[in-house]
């Protein structure tokens, strides 16, 4: 289906080419306006179709992720009970763990980098105790 759409768009582009180059290198203002509007529409159409494709693949992966989460959740409890709590080892040069409250890892890393940059201090010389989202 995508291929059919692309062939149609290419045909329209070819017609526009003929229309715009018939009069030589110089275009009339009317032809230029048509080319500009058509070009902007092609960019929009291309990216809208790409957006739909991304939504479809996103939906597929979300459903797949939800299924894979549901399966181990059923078996998770006995495993958790059986396994003793193992304390995570610190990375070399690390200043310890940071407690995160409603803040994803990526954002926390970004915040720490910004703070280090503003303070003009290397990140490994700073000790972050916790990062909490203020709602």
């Amino acid at each position, binding site marked *: 289906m995508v291929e059919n759409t692309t062939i149609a768009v290419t045909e329209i582009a070819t017609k526009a080419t003929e229309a715009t180059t018939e009069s030589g290198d110089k275009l009339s203002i009317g032809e230029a306006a048509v080319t500009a*509007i058509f070009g902007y529409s092609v*960019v929009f159409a291309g990216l809208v179709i790409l*957006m739909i494709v991304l939504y479809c*693949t996103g939906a597929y992966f979300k459903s797949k992720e939800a299924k894979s989460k549901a399966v181990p959740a059923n078996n998770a409890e006995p495993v958790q009970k059986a396994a003793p709590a193992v304390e995570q080892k610190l990375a070399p040069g690390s200043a310890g763990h940071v407690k995160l409250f409603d803040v994803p890892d*990526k954002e926390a890393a970004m915040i720490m980098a910004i703070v280090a940059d503003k303070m003009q201090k290397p990140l490994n010389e700073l000790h972050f105790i916790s990062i909490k989202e203020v709602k």
Partner: protein
Amino acid sequence: MDVIETLKTLWNDSGFQSFFVDSGWKNLVMIVISCLLLYLGIKKKFEPLLLVGIAFGCLLVNLSYFGEGSSDALYHLDLWDNFLDPDHEDYHSYGAILKHGGLLDILYIGVKAGVYPSLIFMGVGAMTDFGPLISNPKSLLLGAAAQMGVFLAFFGAICLGFTGQEAASIGIIGGADGPTAIFLTTRLAPHLLGAIAIAAYSYMALIPMIQPPIMKALTTEKERQVKMEQSRTVSKTEKIIFPIIVAMFVILLLPSTAPLVGCLMLGNLWRECGVTERLSDTVQNALMNIVTVFLGISVGATTAATRFLSLETIKIVGLGLAAFCFSTIGGLLVGKLMYKLSGGKINPLIGSAGVSAVPMAARVSQMEGQKANPKNFLLMHAMGPNVAGVIGSAIAAGFLLAVFK
């Protein structure tokens, strides 16, 4: 040995003498302009990685090329004019360039053949995380909207008397994407390359000054304060599939985008697939730096005084600025529309990041958002439209190339 005669010969051979013959004074003006560009690149840090090379290329060509017959020149405009003239025996003859050309002529072959811009795109792809775009595909609408400046500047250029091919090359400045602008211009209007490349890179460096007043004028304080929700996490598989899908789809849609989009997506695939770290690292660093060296200096070489100092250049500079402004406006207007349709959940400031200029435009959205609300972190949200803009400007360039080549 006749000392006086020898001194006369030396004087006649020297470049100093050429400044006082015919339009040699124009070279002096270009030397001053190249020093100004060097100042902007070094002192003001205007896209220094490229602008310093471009400025020095400009200096070198204007020190050595004073019109036809400059046998020791590093770059020969006349050779490239013959290369493009269908009636000339050297038409499309790289052999003639290699035989008669100077160092910069030979380096320029990479620009002319579209090799450098594509390799730069490969590096950009390897450095870009498309995660924010994949997690929020609506960003693509903002990337599309922000191409408005491309087509308005194209229209404006036609009104000012440029040909269709020249207008298309000028318009693409509004895509805020240097490699794309160079790629398209070398194919459609190579005689304008110097002016267009300098305008594109200068305005990209000036984004923190150009965009904020427009952003403030088009958005309300309430809109700028909107705090956006965290996007979903994107899986590794999605990130691997993304460049393959985009390459297939965009290249099928507009085959003329294949060099740019193909290289962009290949670079990104190397980054995301997890088994080609060495290649990803090389493309991001070593290759990118090497190509930047060649691209900067050879683009600068196209600014020979005889071609660059004209009314056309001033028009290009003006149209380029208009293109940037209208692209920002296009992104912001669709951002505002999305704000309304989402019930105030989308901050319209991320729309201005739809002009490519990665990551500068996204940083400007972040800064303006934080000025309105210090708890606002728009950077990752703005990165979506920002990388969508790269794809959007490649599609716009592909369309213009398909129509005017």
